[in-house]
């Protein structure tokens, strides 16, 4: 069977789970598409999953109320072994990419990480992935009785409900004790469209000049056109903006329809997080700034005059 470990937040199945169902279908491997739901109080999530999968395995367990790498790895491995899964798909979120390698080691299986495409090639499974700060696309391949894959969010279409609900089964798990204690948690919320889901993202860089300018220019423009807000590392390091807004190698990866970079130089580490955006727009006073090399549209000028003009024009 093909085993997909569901990703879910706030009692809802995440889009990434639906994307993994499409990934599983596109791989063209045999066996039922099985979704494993780990968590506590997950009946509604399991019902959602049943709309797209052949079968759903539900592990509703107090110990699974909070994500924990070691527990998730143990649970996934146990179910994979009992169900004789040959392909295991895990979300390419921060947490998914944290426990997937543990599953691969436990199963002595190869691991295809952060796949953007998936295809069976005889006995092998082939995937594409981005490497070298997303400047290269590599095609990689692995053989084995079991292969573990993490799937990059946003790379596959979300699967649509099939109309026939898959069977649901409760599963029992032998879980280890959690060894990492969480002693506090900060959830970074934004009132705007979440960065990862926004169709348009306006990102401010150091060229914006100050935290006050960031609010009036970057947030101002984002609000005028209904966009999400991003920031460069320089801005986050300076304490102007929260880390949750950082786009790039060590921040978030985004792939919106339009990415508007305001006062951003376009360093490779930044490009690696937004370079796949459909349209890239740059506003920078330096015509030689690297961001213009990857831009579809750009204005050479001072953000302090260009952005207010844009906000005014957009509001009309």
């Amino acid at each position, binding site marked *: 069977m093909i085993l997909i470990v569901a990703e879910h*937040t706030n009692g809802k199945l995440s889009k990434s789970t639906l994307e993994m169902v499409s990934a599983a279908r596109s791989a063209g491997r045999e066996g039922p598409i099985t979704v494993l739901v780990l968590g506590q109080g997950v009946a509604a999530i399991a019902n959602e999953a049943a709309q797209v999968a052949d079968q759903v395995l539900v592990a509703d367990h107090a110990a699974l109320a909070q994500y924990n*790498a070691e527990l998730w*790895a143990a649970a996934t491995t146990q179910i994979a072994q009992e169900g004789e899964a040959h392909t295991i798909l895990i979300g390419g979120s*921060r947490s998914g990419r*944290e*426990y997937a*390698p*543990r599953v691969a*080691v436990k199963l002595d*299986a*190869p*691991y*295809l*990480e952060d796949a953007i495409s998936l295809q069976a090639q005889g006995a092998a499974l082939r995937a594409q992935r*981005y*490497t*070298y*700060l997303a*400047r*290269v*696309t*590599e*095609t*990689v*391949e*692995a053989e084995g009785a079991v292969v573990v894959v993490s799937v990059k969010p946003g790379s596959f279409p979300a699967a649509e409900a099939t109309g026939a609900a898959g069977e649901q089964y409760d599963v029992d798990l032998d879980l280890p004790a959690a060894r*990492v*204690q*969480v*002693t*506090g*948690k*900060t959830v*970074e919320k934004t009132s705007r469209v979440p960065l990862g889901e926004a169709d348009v993202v306006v990102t401010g860089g150091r060229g914006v000049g100050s935290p006050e300018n960031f609010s009036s220019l970057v947030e101002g423009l984002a609000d005028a056109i*209904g966009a999400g807000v991003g920031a460069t*590392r320089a801005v986050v*390091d300076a304490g102007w903006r929260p*880390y949750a807004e950082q786009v790039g*190698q*060590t921040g978030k990866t985004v792939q919106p329809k*339009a990415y508007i970079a305001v006062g951003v130089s376009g*360093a*490779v*580490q930044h490009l690696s997080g937004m*370079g*796949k955006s*459909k349209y890239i*727009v740059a506003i920078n006073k330096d015509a030689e700034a690297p961001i*213009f*090399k990857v*831009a*579809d549209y*750009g*204005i*050479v*000028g*001072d953000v302090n005059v*260009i952005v207010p003009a*844009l906000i005014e*024009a957009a509001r009309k």
Partner: protein
Amino acid sequence: MKILTLVRQVPDAEARVRVQGTTVDLEGTTLVMDGMDEYGVEEALRLRENGANVEEIVALAVGPKRVEDALRTALAMGADRAIHVETDTPLDPIALSQVVAQVAQTEGAQLILVGGQEADWDSQALGAATAERLGWPQLTWTNELNVDGDTLTGRHDVDEGNESFQATLPAVVTTQQGLNEPRYPTLPNIMKAKKKELRKDDLGQYGATPKVRVVSAEIQTRARLNKVIDGKDPQAAAQELLGLLRNEAKVIA
């Protein structure tokens, strides 16, 4: 406590990457220690400087002869000695973790520091795979770390924000920006580093073989429109840009 800090060598971020045949060709490319691993070396040094009981800091690298340079950098930053497992075979992170875990065991390391994401394979797997092989817990994307006796506390990024954590050594910690500001090796320290031990091991003794094959590689180029508007007349430039976004790209209403 003995700290093992893992060092990888990657192309300098500003260097151009080239593809030759089916793989990325690093011939003639400027190579540096992966920035993410630099945070790990720096953190090991800071733990010691801030009074944690650090017996020894050992830098480990696996790769071809040239990887020595990255180890020398770690030694010049202040690591006590280095181990180089020399091989020309590229190993995927799951295979590589086999080597790291064995070295950790024979060295009796209690804390392993490794970069959160590799700048060549864009992988986040090495820390977790190593932790699993050793049966240790792991803390990934760590941006604050304290060690008091056997207790590890700190903060790290998770899916929806960040968490404070507590765990007991031994453990694997993956490092990232915000954790510290890596120091530059000074000339006297570079000179001193030349005298520090750099042991050579053969990959053969670790029995690690790649599990993933690279079939092909392509440089990502996407033709961009490169329509650049002069901003001398801000109002006109703004109108023109919005027009393009609305009518040509059709990305805003």
